[in-house]
């Protein structure tokens, strides 16, 4: 397998982009990545997206996006893994370049959510769960996460307020990210008094939806290493694992077994341990998922991630900074695009381009993207040499 490097990145701001269509969003991010890379043609375009069929009445994004950005005749595929779709597109590009099958892969991920009314989007998001045995019972995606969070609090004795540091940290960091949906720190009062969505999850535990797209251009690392003095950012690990589609079939209690397996595999590939990771862009769709991701990836003992957060270790100066550019909570969660935003944010940190959110000495960054309520988890580690 060839070593794979990043040549360019692009992203749009996450927000309600009423004047932009699905393909215009994807195009903005893709063309920004091509311009950043200084590349005119690519061999393949891999597009990540969760729900264009129901939300935008458009499928076949493999051709649709390649055509729109002027790459007709390139290979074009669409990847779907619910909220992990963005990472799935990125991983496909990594595998294609690593294998030698293609030399330039443009990976782009997009979600256009505001073309659907809110209650339809709620039903569409629930399709990431088991439609027959979870969705048909009248549960939303938030409800499934609330079931996990309540059980977690019951087993480990945490109170709702103990999850507050995840939200405060994300918003404080998002204040420095011009692409974030919310660029303002929030107060403890705002967290504690937020309206309940599905008890114990309140509005401030949950990440906001939004329209957005992000893109990364991948090439073989050897091509870049020949250039003198170039800082090369490479993909050190790419791994995925699944668990049962339905929460009720899980066997490990409130623990993300697929995240554990995918993180372990990523550490093995990169020959690293959690101690080597400088910062971690995790999938804080809900505060409980941030906690579970930290535990499954070896940064906290089972049931102890809220302690890590309460001790300040998740902040930019802590042991393992998370959501360094706002995370899903403040940057926003354009579902199928989120995984690509995480990768783009790691690259911005490794390039030293994160502005006021810059982590000192960021050399190795990790992402973890959670599809469904823990059923499809992709982990990536990137490093800079």
């Amino acid at each position, binding site marked *: 397998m060839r070593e794979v490097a990043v040549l360019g990145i692009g992203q749009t701001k996450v927000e309600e982009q009423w004047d932009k269509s699905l393909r215009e969003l994807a195009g903005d991010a893709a063309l920004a990545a091509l311009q950043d890379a200084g590349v005119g043609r690519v061999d393949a375009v891999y597009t990540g997206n969760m729900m264009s069929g129901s939300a935008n009445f458009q499928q076949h994004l493999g051709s649709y996006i390649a055509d729109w950005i002027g790459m007709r005749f390139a290979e074009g595929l669409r990847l779907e893994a619910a909220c992990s779709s963005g990472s799935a597109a990125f991983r496909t590009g990594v595998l294609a370049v690593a294998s030698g099958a293609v030399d330039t892969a443009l990976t782009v991920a997009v979600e256009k959510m505001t073309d659907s009314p809110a209650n339809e989007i709620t039903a569409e998001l629930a399709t990431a769960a088991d439609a027959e045995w979870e969705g048909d019972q009248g549960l939303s995606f938030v409800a499934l996460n609330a079931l996990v969070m309540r059980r977690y609090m019951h087993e480990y004795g945490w109170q709702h307020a103990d999850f507050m540091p995840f939200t405060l940290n994300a918003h404080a960091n998002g204040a420095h990210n011009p692409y974030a949906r919310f660029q303002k720190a929030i107060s403890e009062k705002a967290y504690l008094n937020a309206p309940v*969505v599905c008890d114990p*999850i309140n509005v401030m535990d949950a990440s906001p939806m939004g329209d957005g797209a992000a893109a990364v251009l991948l090439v073989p690392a050897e091509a870049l290493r020949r250039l003198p003095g170039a800082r090369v950012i490479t993909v050190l690990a790419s791994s995925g694992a699944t668990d049962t589609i339905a929460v009720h079939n899980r066997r490990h209690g409130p623990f993300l077994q697929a995240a554990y397996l995918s993180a372990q595999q990523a550490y093995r590939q990169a020959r690293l341990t959690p101690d080597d990771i400088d910062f971690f862009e995790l999938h804080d769709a809900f505060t409980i998922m941030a906690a579970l991701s930290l535990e499954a990836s070896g940064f906290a003992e089972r049931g102890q991630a809220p302690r890590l957060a309460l001790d300040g270790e998740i902040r930019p100066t802590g042991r393992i900074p998370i959501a360094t550019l706002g995370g899903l909570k403040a940057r926003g969660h354009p579902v199928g695009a989120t995984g690509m935003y995480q990768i783009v944010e790691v690259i911005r940190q490794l390039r030293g381009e994160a502005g006021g959110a810059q982590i000192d000495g960021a050399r190795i960054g990790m992402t973890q993207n959670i599809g469904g309520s823990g059923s499809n988890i992709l982990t990536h580690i990137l490093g800079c040499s």
Partner: protein
Amino acid sequence: MEIPRHWRIKKQRYALVGEVCPHCDAKIFPPRDVCPECGGEAKTPFAFTGRGEIYSYTVMNDAPAGYQESTPYTVALVKLQEGPMVTAQLTDLGSQPVEIGMPVEMVTRRIRSDGDERGMLVYGYKFRPVMQA
């Protein structure tokens, strides 16, 4: 939504009919024909008693399309006596507070209504607190 999608799982919806594995005796719900414990083929029908306890719960205040007439409603993970866990709505709660560990039993209720008076009505299992004698 199409009627056959609901019609073909009526035994599960109305009577909690799952499967039992002939190899390792694991009880399986919903049925899946492949035992999640040992990987063997498991097609022997098994009717669950419908008794269990609350493993976790929450309340739906904003419902997905098709479920809005009954908000707010409580949903739960119910651990069945025979082992498997099932996702379902709770009903007949009265003023009783819901708690983890609370014993519940299955009943049949309307789950979903589609659109106008000609829309489909979907019935299925919900769980209610076990009446203490």
